[in-house]
């Protein structure tokens, strides 16, 4: 085993699809967090592709219980560590996909934020229930065709906007809220480290493109992640105690560039009205967070 493999807390040999954005993010997260970390993981792709018995990709203590309860389990881990007098040395992460975070896991997550547990909640946002076959979640973007929000003669795909999770997190008055993307791996790792340096509840939402669910070649994961940010559709923002402390500036590419390689938006590309609606979502983000760098 090489030095790198010894150091990585997320071992090779997991069974994620080739080019899986979530597997990139999960490895970046745990390697930034370090070995003194305990993870509670919701049900989902990540749990399935990293822990198919008798194998496990994790080199930190890791527990999966159910689809909706990683946050509550993590708060129990934190409470037990406090009781054992070990909490100061150990970080606790509760991680889930977008469905496990914004839909079925929302109540438990709100609970740990309100109770101010020292837990970093991570949402790996691949914008649908990919593990069960690409069904719509509360974080599926407007217009995306999924197996339960299919496009058709009477449908332009998912008719709802993404649930504003960072705002919901901030409304709980928690210490740190940020979004990140596998398109910006160093920024992602910096945010994990920063979050864990702050005591109290933290929320990090990471955009993790899914080649299978979104319908693009696996080699494009990095580029697509970058384009989501670059178009303003997935703004990278960072809050401390509810105050916006940073945004990643962009040069504002047209959303078409991001949508075009993805099968889930195929029905949008030749529909100017729908395309305009998605461009407006990006424009609103650009305005709201002042995303465009001066001089562009």
């Amino acid at each position, binding site marked *: 085993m090489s030095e*790198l493999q010894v150091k990585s807390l997320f*071992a*090779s040999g997991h069974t994620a699809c080739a*080019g899986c954005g979530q*597997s990139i993010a999960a490895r970046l997260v745990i390697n930034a967090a370090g070995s003194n970390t305990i993870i509670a993981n919701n049900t989902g792709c990540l749990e399935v592709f990293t822990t198919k*018995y008798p194998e*496990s990709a*994790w080199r930190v203590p890791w527990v999966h219980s159910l689809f909706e309860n990683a946050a509550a389990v993590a708060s129990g881990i934190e409470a037990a560590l406090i009781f054992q007098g070990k909490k100061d040395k150990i970080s606790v992460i509760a991680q889930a996909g977008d469905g496990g975070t914004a839909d079925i896991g929302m109540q438990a997550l709100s609970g740990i934020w309100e109770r101010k547990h020292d837990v970093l909640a991570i949402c790996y946002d691949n914008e649908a229930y990919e593990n069960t076959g690409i069904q719509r979640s509360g974080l599926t973007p407007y217009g995306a065709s999924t197996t339960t929000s299919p496009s058709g003669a009477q449908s332009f795909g998912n008719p709802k906007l993404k649930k504003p999770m960072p705002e919901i997190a901030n409304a709980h008055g928690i210490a740190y809220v940020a979004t990140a993307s596998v398109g910006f791996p160093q920024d992602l790792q910096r945010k994990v480290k920063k979050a864990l340096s702050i005591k109290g509840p933290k929320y990090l939402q990471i955009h993790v493109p899914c080649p299978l669910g979104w319908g693009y070649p*696996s080699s494009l994961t990095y580029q697509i992640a970058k384009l989501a940010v670059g178009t303003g559709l997935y703004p990278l923002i960072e809050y401390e105690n509810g105050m916006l402390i940073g945004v990643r500036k962009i040069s504002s590419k047209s959303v078409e560039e991001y949508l075009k390689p993805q099968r889930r938006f195929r029905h949008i590309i030749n529909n100017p009205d729908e395309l305009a609606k998605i461009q407006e979502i990006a424009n609103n983000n650009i305005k709201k967070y002042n995303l465009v760098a001066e001089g562009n």
Partner: protein
Amino acid sequence: MFGPIIAKPGSSRKNKTGSWRIESKPKFLQSNCIACKLCILICPEGCIEGSQKNTFHCDFDYCKGCGNCASICPKQDIVMVKQE
């Protein structure tokens, strides 16, 4: 009696996912490399290693051939070639 209730850390390495590669695989040209390590960061398998310039390579036991290392390389020093 307990049966399977615990899995050992890092044991997924027993699973050689390199056999999944079908079309192409990365070739590390090792000529213009600046050791930025972005390929290491982006690799979903965590199977790229290297530290000095022009030393980076990947472990084909695990590489699934996704091509994101070639995509992220700022020097185009990784190219995808046809899988033999």
